């Protein structure tokens, strides 16, 4: 099957004012994203994540290397018919309402008439903004802006969605809504290329991950493979009695080859605890 994204030996240098030597933002990066995959590109600030994404969208021109979207050169306008993009901290036109924003982007992609109106309604419902659709974006919260941004990225039903820090500055509830939307996209077979430094979120949603540092891809592969500790086994028990645990310890000690490293109660995450306490608790 044709890959959704193919980046080969991408190099991008910038020449900042007052600096003699060029700054290499992306250094020989290669990656492939299969159709329907959720791929996470992670790395510290200034590591080259956004530049890689911009090169893929034709917003910057590579010094060398190629970027392809479903086999099409990403510098060509036609390749963008299949792509939806949500930039980091987007500021859409404040004078437009949510529905007008989607109409504007839809028309740019060639949608018209009832098809466009139907799509606008569908997307507002998908991102849970049906009631705020007629309000101007100037009055939207950060999370609402991110969601309308995601909706505009999906307006032409793209096969690939590129999300640059989609939850930056969003509270945990808004962040989870966006995470759920990503799961929704995955279920619908849409490829997602996600760039974030919120590692927990990337771990939650991504099939494959690339770690970029100082412009170079330092690690890349399926998430399960990258995270698995090859010589360790996890055993999670429910309602285990102290006697049973003692027996297990005895068996491990008797084996001679294996070592019990830790027996502890698993913990929930702070995010999950926060969400349970704020949104999942029933009203008194």
């Amino acid at each position, binding site marked *: 099957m044709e890959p959704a994204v193919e980046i080969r030996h991408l190099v991008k240098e910038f020449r900042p004012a007052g600096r003699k030597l060029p700054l290499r933002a992306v250094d020989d990066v290669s990656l492939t994203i299969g159709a329907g995959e959720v791929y996470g590109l992670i790395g510290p600030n200034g590591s080259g994540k956004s530049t890689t994404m911009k090169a893929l969208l034709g917003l910057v021109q590579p010094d060398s290397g190629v970027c392809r979207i*479903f*086999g099409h050169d990403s510098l060509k306008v036609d390749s963008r*018919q299949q792509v*939806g*993009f949500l930039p980091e901290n987007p500021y*859409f*036109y404040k*004078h437009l309402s949510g529905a007008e924003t989607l109409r504007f*982007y839809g028309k*740019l992609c060639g949608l018209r008439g009832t098809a466009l109106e139907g799509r606008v309604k569908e997307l507002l419902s998908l991102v849970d903004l049906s009631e705020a659709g007629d309000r101007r974006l100037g009055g939207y919260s950060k999370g609402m802006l991110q969601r309308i941004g995601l909706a505009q990225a999906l307006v032409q039903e793209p096969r690939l969605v590129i999300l640059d820090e989609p939850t930056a500055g969003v509270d945990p509830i808004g962040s989870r809504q966006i995470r759920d939307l990503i799961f929704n996209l995955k279920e619908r077979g849409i490829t997602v290329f996600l760039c974030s430094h919120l590692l927990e979120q990337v771990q939650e949603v991504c099939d494959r991950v690339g770690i970029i540092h100082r412009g170079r891809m330092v690690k890349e592969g399926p998430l399960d493979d990258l995270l698995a500790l090859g010589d360790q086994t996890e055993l999670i028990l429910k309602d285990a009695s102290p006697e049973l645990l003692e027996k297990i310890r005895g068996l491990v000690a008797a084996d001679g080859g294996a070592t019990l490293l830790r027996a502890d109660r698993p913990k929930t995450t702070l995010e999950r605890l926060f969400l349970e306490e704020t949104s999942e608790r029933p009203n008194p």
Partner: protein
Amino acid sequence: MSRPAKNRPLNPRRIGVITMHTFTQLVRMKVFYFLGAFALILLGSNLFEIQDLGRPDLEGTDVLRSIRSWSLGTMTLFSVVIGVVATALLLPRDVEDRTLYTILAKPVPRLDYLIGKLGGVLLLIFISLAVMDLLMTGVLAVRTHFVTAEQVAAATRSGWPPDAVEALRQDTLNQGPTWELHGAVLVVFLRAAVIASTAMLISTFSTSTLFTTITGFLVYFIGNFQAEARRLYFGEGIDPLEKALGMAVAVIFPDFQLYNVVDTLIEGGAFPPGRLEMLIGLSGFYVVLHLFVSWIVFAEKEF
């Protein structure tokens, strides 16, 4: 390999979408408030001064001329300021707000984006000038009616011969709403179109709105000395350096002095033969040239 839809540049629908969006954006920035002020002053001056026109001499036509002059002066001011400021503002704002990323990440050729943005500014200026023209025509029509009646009555009372009265009537009507006056408004629009496309060109390589605005006005100012530059270039006994400078100015900067034909029209004069056609052609040439160079710069620009 799947084949996405072809997205060739110069798609009228896509350009239309960006044009209408830019127009809406400017309207919601309350640019039309200026029109309200214009209407208020024009109508107010008409209502309050109309009783003072019972004079048999040419003072009445002076008032009509003053309305034409004031109206066209305001139109020029409005169109040049909006042409420079709005164009200088829109492009960098889209870059700063990253809305440009989301637009260019859609199948939108950069040329279409530029044409759409300029189109939105020009549409706003065109509609504003059309409304102002309508208001000016209405006020002038009313005042011309009263002034003509007063002047003819006064001249008849003074015993002027009929042909002299008719000549006076005709002279007064010439200071009212005429096709030449509408032509003058068209010239004001053409001048604004050239200055707006100049500002767009500057904004494609400038890094700040302030720089674009100042340079845009500077180009307008220099453009008004084009004729002098041409005289330097073609004149005899001119220093080679001055000649080179004159040539550079004559080639780079549009000759805005040509548009000063508006002054003759305000005085009740007519277009010199072929002047309007020449101005339409020249303005079209400059707008296309500026758009083409803007596109060359913008096509390579990184965000």
